[in-house]
């Protein structure tokens, strides 16, 4: 029988990254993700990896940029304000086509905000965040078990397509404790091939440069277009989502992470009260599961987006559906969680046709 271990979300993410082959971590303390660098500080040396508590989040992403250039599996983590600091570095990683793994345990913002769980960094994660045209592969866990198992996929995608990858969690998932079962075999880093772009001890081979610029006229466009080909492949092959009770649903909740957990409770409450509600949970936030949403919209006329923010993913839902169905929003900004009751009330008013659509013309 597979072993299940009660684990804290942040520690599950760290251990999951190590089992996925991570051998370098740089990070800086910031609540609510401190357990990640703390865990890495003693666990990484155990597997022959290197840990650095960097002087800041900016320095950490640049350490990761350096480590990634050698072809090693590496990671940095932070929470909202610290992720903001990393944006330039992430843009460099994307521009140099380096695979890196990022962990963002979101807290309330903007600014110093608070230290409670929130979902206010969706745009930052999926819309680049950093400057220039690039994409980040983003997965959103809904609990500790997914925190433990998503790093495996993230590293796989990062290296296959040479793109930064991210687990986007929130402070609640980071701090909670749940049973964890690792479903992927541990990666044997000694068997990982050294990428043909990696810099290192060259033993006489032709020199390599890791960089993100090309000043020659027209050449940056070529670089970007090459990248876009890989992004298109990711959109074809790597979309993930979860569906609950969609077959007869009149209202479909679209939610990720902790908001999705609450939405499960809201869905059950609604079903008890006779409303036919289902849940569509995007797991990859980029690539966003737009094709599946469009398919669902052929039958479902009402989508309720539930977010612990002012509403960021709701725009992706709107863009995907492009007017095919009604889109409503239950938003809870400023960190803190909505209750199942509150979400149910919104669904009730949708079913009674009393609710206002998101961004309805005034």
């Amino acid at each position, binding site marked *: 029988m597979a072993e299940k271990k009660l684990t804290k979300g942040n520690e599950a993410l760290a251990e999951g990254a190590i089992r996925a082959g991570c051998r370098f971590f740089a990070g800086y303390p910031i609540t609510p993700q401190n357990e990640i660098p*703390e865990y890495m*500080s003693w666990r990484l040396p155990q597997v022959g990896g290197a840990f650095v508590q960097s002087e800041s989040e900016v320095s950490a992403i640049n350490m990761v940029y350096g480590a990634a250039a050698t072809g090693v599996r590496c990671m940095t983590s932070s929470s909202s304000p610290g992720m903001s600091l990393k944006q330039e570095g992430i843009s460099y990683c994307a521009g140099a086509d380096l695979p890196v793994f990022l962990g963002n345990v979101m807290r309330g913002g903007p600014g110093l905000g608070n230290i409670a769980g929130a979902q206010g960094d969706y745009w930052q994660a999926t819309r680049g965040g950093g400057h220039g045209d690039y994409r980040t592969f983003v997965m959103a866990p809904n609990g500790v078990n997914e925190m433990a198992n998503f790093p495996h996929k993230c590293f796989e995608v990062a290296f296959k397509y040479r793109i930064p990858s991210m687990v986007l969690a929130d402070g609640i998932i980071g701090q909670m404790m749940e049973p964890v079962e690792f479903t992927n075999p541990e990666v044997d880093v000694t068997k990982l091939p050294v990428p043909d772009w990696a810099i290192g001890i060259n033993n006489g081979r032709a020199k390599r440069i890791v960089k993100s610029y090309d000043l020659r006229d027209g050449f940056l466009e070529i670089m970007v277009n090459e990248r876009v080909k890989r992004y298109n492949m990711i959109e074809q092959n790597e979309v993930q989502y979860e569906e609950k009770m969609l077959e007869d649903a009149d209202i479909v909740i679209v939610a990720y992470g902790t908001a999705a957990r609450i939405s499960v409770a809201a869905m059950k409450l609604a079903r008890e009260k006779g409303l036919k509600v289902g849940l569509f949970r995007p797991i990859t936030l980029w690539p966003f599961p737009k094709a599946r949403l469009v398919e669902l919209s052929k039958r479902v006329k009402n989508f309720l987006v539930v977010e612990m923010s002012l509403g960021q993913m709701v725009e992706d839902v709107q863009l995907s559906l492009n007017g095919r169905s009604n889109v409503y929003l239950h938003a809870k900004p400023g960190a803190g969680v909505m209750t199942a009751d509150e979400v149910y009330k919104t669904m009730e008013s949708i079913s009674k046709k009393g609710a206002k659509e998101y961004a309805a013309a005034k």
Partner: protein
Amino acid sequence: MQLLNKKPEALLDVPTHYCPGCGHGIVHRLVAEVIDELGIRNRTIGVAPVGCAVFSDTYFNCDMIQGPHGRGPAEATGIKRTIPGAIVFSYQGDGDLASIGMAEIVHAAIRSEHITVIFINNAIYGMTGGQMAPTTLIGQKATTCVDGRTVAQAGYPIKMSEMLSTIDGAVYIERTSVHSAPNVMKTKAAIKKAFQNQVDGKGFSLVEILSMCPTNWGTKASNPAEATKFVAEGMMPVFPLGVYKDADAADKK
């Protein structure tokens, strides 16, 4: 019977969130007493850090700004350059000043910004739960060096007063501590000089204050005062107290 001590105007008379035995409370009071004695409260602006003292923005009874981790000296620069008549102080911990804020403090000293910096050095990260600081001692345990800091892993603790004193723009740098009553009084005198320098239009002045963190040093909760031993026996040999730069004294030679 006469009451011998009065609470300073420049500090709100409210309970603070600081742990029992934490040095922040002592230094807050000293800064407030100095502000009162110099009569500058109505033109003083303080910059609060990220760290345990983030809430100093609530406690000091003057205009306050709270900004990103480590950027206090930059914020102070923005304020002082636009309102030269204000007395601007940046209050920072060892993570804020010596880790993420290293560039900002060095350049404020280089430019000899006419600001007063109060630097609380307790060799650990308090607010985030006890991680290693740039000033954590070799062998000292923290949550990101559970077996004790080693040179190989993290290098040596940084001596900010010594380093900043090599900068020509630094006018006054002194290191003091608050682990005993006589040292508390010396700290007050240093803080007073650092603020007086700004009143007199002299340049960048900083006081580094060795302080207690009973919670994250693992001091027994039944007697947080035990933490003063670590300041005296652990920290002071590595961070000697004293005046590291005094442009006034140099002029008088």
